[in-house]
């Protein structure tokens, strides 16, 4: 999930009878499955939660370009390079769709960037891990995009119109990402001994962080209930995590790779896999800023923003001059 631990501003879920007339009408629209559109009335907390969630999601798409960008110049073939470039360009596009959706809630693009750069807003913990070998491009596409898709598909039905529409576009484009990743894994898992070892190593390193993408366990997830009532969160964290494990384990078996979990076992009774929880201490530590790449990622973002400032200003000055000239000529 690209939006983990979105802090809610609500004080828990109110019963319909406790709500003001406006809040009640709003909740009833959501319950009927109606979409909420930008200029319509909405509770302040709904707006704030959505800005945080969509913002975090957008930031994740943008920062998510960095670990993969790391391999564009070193892709093993021209075809792989073209594939990876297209994928990373898509991530930029996804970030833009989401920033646009967030902006309809009354926050500006620059404000969102500044909140990312100052650390006031987060991005997904997954992008604070390094991509050490080419096999990581396979593991990221397969596992990270796979986990993201699992979260994003239900969000196409979310209550906020612009967010839902952005999700529809994103989901349409995302499946190529996962497939190209799995195909990289297929080639490596069937390649030389060394290649297979690299594929296994990538799975070993990304398995835990991928499970963390869905956020903490439901029992520790204090903000979920209100978000679910508002339909800005459609499934619980544990539910999606289980779904991810159930779909991914057979894929790993197909690759003849071993999921790094001693407790992983098919449970005939539940019809699901039993699996170990990821290391939650590590998760909270990465969120706090202590992951292997937190510093590097944020610095790269800030550098791009700061060093691009003169270009943004120059383009604006040029546009204004051109407009003035045109007006003078008329």
């Amino acid at each position, binding site marked *: 999930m690209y939006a983990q631990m979105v802090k809610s501003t609500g004080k828990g879920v109110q019963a319909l009878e406790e709500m003001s007339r406006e809040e009640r009408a709003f909740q009833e629209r959501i319950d009927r499955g109606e979409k909420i559109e930008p*200029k319509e009335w909405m509770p302040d907390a709904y707006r704030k939660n959505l800005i945080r969630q969509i913002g975090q999601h957008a930031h994740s798409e943008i920062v998510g370009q960095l670990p993969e960008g790391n391999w564009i110049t070193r892709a093993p073939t021209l075809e792989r390079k073209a594939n990876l470039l297209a994928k990373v360009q898509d991530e930029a*596009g996804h970030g833009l769709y989401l920033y*646009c959706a967030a902006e309809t809630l009354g926050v500006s693009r620059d404000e969102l960037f500044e909140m990312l750069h100052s650390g006031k807003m987060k991005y997904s913990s997954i992008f604070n891990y390094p991509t050490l070998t080419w096999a990581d491009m396979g593991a990221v596409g397969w596992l990270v995009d796979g986990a993201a898709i699992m979260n994003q598909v239900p969000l196409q039905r979310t209550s906020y119109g612009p967010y839902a*529409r952005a999700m529809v576009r994103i989901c349409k*484009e995302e499946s190529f990402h996962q497939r190209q990743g799995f195909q990289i894994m297929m080639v490596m898992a069937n390649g030389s001994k060394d290649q297979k070892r690299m594929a296994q190593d990538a799975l070993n390193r990304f398995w835990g962080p991928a499970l963390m993408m869905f956020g903490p366990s439901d029992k520790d997830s204090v903000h979920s209930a209100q978000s679910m009532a508002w339909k800005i969160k459609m499934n619980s964290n544990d539910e999606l995590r289980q779904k991810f494990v159930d779909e991914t384990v057979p894929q790993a078996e197909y690759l003849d790779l071993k999921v790094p979990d001693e407790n992983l076992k098919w449970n005939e009774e539940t019809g699901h896999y039993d699996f170990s929880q990821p290391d939650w201490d590590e998760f909270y530590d990465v969120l706090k800023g202590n992951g292997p790449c937190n510093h590097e990622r944020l610095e790269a973002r800030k550098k791009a923003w700061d060093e691009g400032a003169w270009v943004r200003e120059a*383009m604006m000055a040029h*546009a204004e001059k051109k407009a003035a000239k045109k007006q003078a000529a008329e």
Partner: protein
Amino acid sequence: MSDKKEWPLWEVFIRGQHGMSHRHVGSLHASDNEMAMKNARDVYTRRNEGVSIWVVEAQHISASVPSEKGPMFDPAKDKVYRHPTFYELPDEAGNM
């Protein structure tokens, strides 16, 4: 952020196929119309989604007000006689 101005917001409309009308697909920021057009191409037509693009600066769009939805659209609701099914005709008249 004292004197730094954010690039204006543009709304993007795309004709998906010949014969269809342009449809709103999203928005983006750009310093002028030329850049808006280039960005729209890169952001919204990476997979052959369009044969034509319009970009309009968002501030030039006038929109109906959500709170006036009632007075704006309700009057059309009771004018059923604007629909063909309001007029009952005999089968003998054939398709009409």
